[in-house]
């Protein structure tokens, strides 16, 4: 059974059908990429899966469970973590604090215990920290551990956001344009990390990305969408060669 199954998903903003009958399924352990021109509805699909938007039709199944009507904050505890296209970190906190915030779904203590700082709160904090340190090692963020987000370069912030997603111990990671705004070297690093996440941590990755070099390097399967509708599904090479995809990006050849 697929880890994530999207069936006939639709949403309309006013009269615009941003996503219109999109279906796909992501198998456990694969890197699945959604590509498409600007405004194709890629990020909207992400926001539908993380339940920030209310779909007007269709179903989303995660590990066999229907999550279409769950409130947004119930998604992360299931094991779905995400990043944002424009980075949504907590700017006034340090990297470490941001990653600890990623541990929220694993929190074990009530606010009243926190307030009295009972011994078990301390034990839980150490446990959270241990997990976070593993992520810091994995993504090589040790140098930035105690730095405020507000002072970090863009490329590092991108990695910190992925680290925060990993801190929650997810099974499925949604990466919204992980390489946007990155330099060539940073994009290469990003490709390494995505491969490591898949191979070393055994994570399933659903990604939206424009950079085709990154897409073809890391993706197992690629779905092309345009104007909210699915165009083509297959390996990166297959999708790039599909005439409908080329038409969506470049426009149709004029027929004289």
């Amino acid at each position: 059974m697929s880890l994530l199954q999207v069936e006939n998903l639709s949403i309309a903003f006013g009269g615009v059908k941003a996503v219109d009958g999109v279906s796909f399924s992501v198998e456990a352990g694969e890197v699945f990429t959604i590509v498409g021109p600007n405004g194709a509805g890629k990020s909207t699909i992400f926001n539908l899966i993380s339940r920030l938007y209310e779909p007007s039709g269709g179903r989303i199944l995660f590990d066999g469970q229907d999550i279409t009507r769950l409130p947004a904050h119930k998604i992360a505890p299931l094991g779905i973590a995400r990043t944002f296209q424009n980075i949504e970190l907590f700017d006034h906190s340090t990297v470490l604090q941001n990653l600890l915030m990623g541990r929220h779904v694993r929190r074990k203590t009530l606010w009243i215990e926190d307030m009295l700082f009972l011994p078990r709160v301390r034990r839980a904090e150490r446990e959270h920290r241990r997990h976070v340190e593993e992520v810091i090692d994995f993504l090589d963020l040790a140098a930035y551990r105690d730095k405020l987000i507000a002072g970090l370069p863009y490329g590092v912030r991108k990695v910190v956001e992925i680290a925060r997603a990993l801190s929650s111990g997810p099974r499925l990671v949604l990466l919204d344009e992980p390489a946007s705004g990155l330099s060539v070297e940073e994009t290469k690093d990003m490709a390494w990390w995505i491969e490591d996440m898949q191979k070393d941590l055994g994570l399933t990755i659903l990604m939206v990305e424009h950079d085709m070099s990154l897409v073809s390097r890391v993706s197992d399967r690629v779905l092309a969408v345009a104007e909210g509708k699915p165009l083509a599904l297959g390996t990166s090479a297959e999708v790039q060669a599909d005439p409908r995809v080329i038409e969506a990006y470049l426009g149709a050849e004029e027929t004289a």
Partner: protein
Amino acid sequence: MRVQFKSSYDHDINLFQDNRHRIQYGILILLAIAAPFVLPEYFVGELTQIAIWSLAGLGLMLLVGHTGQVSLGHAAFMAIGAFANMALMERGWPFIPALIASAVITGVAGAVLARPLLRMTGIYLAIATLALSVIIEDIAIIAEPVTGGVSGVIAPMIELFGYEIDRYGTPTAFYYLCLGVLLLVTLMYANLLRSPSGRAFLAVRDSEVSARALGVNVANTKTLAFTLSCAITGLAGALYAHMAQVVNYESFLILISITLLLQVVIGGLGSMHGAFLGAIVVVLLPQVIATLRDLVNAHTPIALGDYPGMDMAAFALIILVMVIYEPRGLYGVWLKVRTWFQLFPLYRKGMFRRSRTYLKTERMR
């Protein structure tokens, strides 16, 4: 410059980073305890005021500074705490249970109001909470059996472990009482901030959308912050009532709400220190202004005393300058000064310039 060598995770979990830190705060507390023996009685009253306003400021700081929700109605919660405490003590409750109960009652009132209020954000939330400040005046008059109506209530004598504590009779004891409550609340507040609950508050403040994606129940978190904020403010209200001796509908006007908000902004939003620094300013600045005015009157032909409202105008001017030139408040100033000394002579001018914030995701509901 000192470099922290961290050798265990506890280093970041502990309340104090190291012994030096521990000693600094220890000395501060000792000074606060020793103050009444050194200072004249007048200043003990001022210190008590500072303690009470610090407490109220902490309450508002939790909401505004750490959870990012504005409130212009916190005087209303001071009033609820004050009247609850008075009413319970008049009905024979001892002081400590009545004080705790007044915090609980204010907290519950806050929790009930939080759900509808916190559906609003920004300026709308400010207006809605401002309405609370207006309504409480009328409620204080209408709810006569509890609040004593127009004439208000007179604070009963506090009896604690066989001692009678009275603001005028035993100002030092009353000061210690306020200081004790303040320290206890400060400790609990600091505990919250270093644990998952506090991080959830900060998450909601900095990015609701990503808090949600991390599994934070935003509505519940805001409600909890509002509840705790109201409970702390209620405590401050109860102590304030004992200090003022008489409270009625005029004790908790909108001006108090606004002053409280100013206090946390001047002190520095998002830091506990800010609540304390703000309280010092709010309590002492009017005295300083009055002293300066008298000096001007005595030594120049200008009679400033003839122009009513000059004190308020000076107060307002100082706050305006503060907000324009140091939006991070007094705590921000302190951080700069400290860094200057720590890095001497390497401090650079642009070190605290705000770094650019990258484009944020369009706010999603």
